[in-house]
């Protein structure tokens, strides 16, 4: 799977000469793609630099030119994937001109779509990141914190907002990531998009109550007709 942030395909083997900078970008991308695939397939602990360079079709020297070790490559992958995810989710959220529940629906839809399209990266980031040491685990935590501000405006819709726990947004984001994780562990990435209506209801309910949350979640734009 060629799932990394940015470009969807490898450089075309066309006749045009490839600039040095573009070629370094391409090497990095190939290394990170291969790292994601291998980690998703067999776990961080089992993945070796030898496997990475072989799959990325680069030499050891090229690998070490960009990354000090496999952990550094994985951290670079996590950062790239996190930034990409935050960008895609925030863009969908901001781009939705409707009221807040619609914005949440748009952001969540974009998140599920991204994870479904890039299951190796999603699996590497969600399932394997905690296995790769404290720095990688901190990225996971950063992800939750990044989503919290998108949910927080929901408090304005809640008459008992002062009673809502301070960490509600992170808890809710954690619940959604948990269910995504569950699907990834079960190897059911293709079913992720069908989660949209129920995950949306889960996110909205504490702010607007079940009736409104269910109505929003049943909205036509959140129904997934084909997985």
């Amino acid at each position: 799977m060629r799932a990394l942030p940015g470009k969807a395909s490898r450089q075309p083997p066309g006749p045009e000469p490839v600039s040095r900078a573009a070629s370094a970008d391409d090497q990095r991308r190939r290394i990170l793609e291969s790292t994601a695939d291998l980690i998703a397939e067999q776990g961080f602990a089992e993945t070796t630099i030898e496997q990475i360079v072989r799959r990325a079709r680069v030499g050891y020297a090229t690998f070490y030119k960009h990354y000090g070790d496999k952990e550094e490559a994985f951290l670079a992958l996590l950062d790239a994937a996190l930034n990409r995810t935050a960008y895609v989710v925030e863009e969908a959220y901001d781009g939705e001109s409707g009221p807040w529940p619609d914005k949440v629906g748009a952001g969540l839809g974009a998140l599920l779509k991204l994870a479904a399209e890039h299951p190796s990266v999603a699996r590497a980031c969600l399932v394997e990141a905690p296995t790769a040491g404290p720095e990688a685990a901190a990225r996971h935590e950063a992800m939750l914190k990044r989503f919290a501000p998108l949910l927080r405006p929901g408090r304005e819709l809640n008459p008992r907002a002062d009673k809502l726990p301070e960490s509600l947004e992170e808890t809710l984001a954690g619940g959604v990531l948990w269910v995504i994780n569950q699907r990834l562990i079960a190897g059911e990435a293709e079913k992720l998009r069908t989660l949209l209506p129920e995950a949306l209801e889960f996110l909205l309910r504490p702010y607007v109550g079940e009736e409104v949350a269910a109505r929003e979640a049943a909205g036509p734009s959140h129904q997934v007709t084909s997985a």
Partner: protein
Amino acid sequence: MADEELGPLPAGRHGFSREQVAHNQRERLIAGLATAVAEKGYRATTITDITKQARVSRRVFYENFEGKEECFLAAFEVVVGHVRELATDAVDGGGEWPEKAVAAARATLAFFADEPDLASLCLVESQAAGAVVAARFHEAVHEVVPYLEQGRNQRQADRELPPTTEDSTIGALVMLASRKVAAGEAEQLEELLPEFAEFILAPYLGADRAGEIAHSPPLQGPRPRSSATWR
């Protein structure tokens, strides 16, 4: 883990059967892993760390486990088994479904607050120990789902809740608790009880009623200490 429980088996003719010795060694290895993982984390823990803590030989380790992962899974099962028992006892303590659900949450949080090392093993390190253990962790958490689903009988509304409601709820709470443990605040886990109660009850009783119960005096007061130990 108290040292006296982990002292070496007396040498020579101690009158234990071979099965008893083997069982004891396995338990010591499990306890040894728990101690080592609490000190160094799963990733950095070596078989030598485990056998040193357990005061048994490497050979004995490999007679019992294929490797670190299998030993970790065994330790995880012991802790989960104990939490399951505490939660079941709490549920059997009586009352209506909401009281039972809160009692089970309270017993679980209390246990982990008393045993920060095991909280870390169960809630944090289990996510750091690779995909096989992560899958087992998810399964163990999923066991709670049928108990939460009983809450659906409490609902006034005719409408069915979405099928993943309980998985999302328990997942959110597990993440909340594991982040607290990862932050080194396992001993304060019981502070989360009102939040747990509200989160568990709200889908079934509505936010208002759930909030009332979560912030009612019985939940604020001192909890009954459990006399059971996990070992």
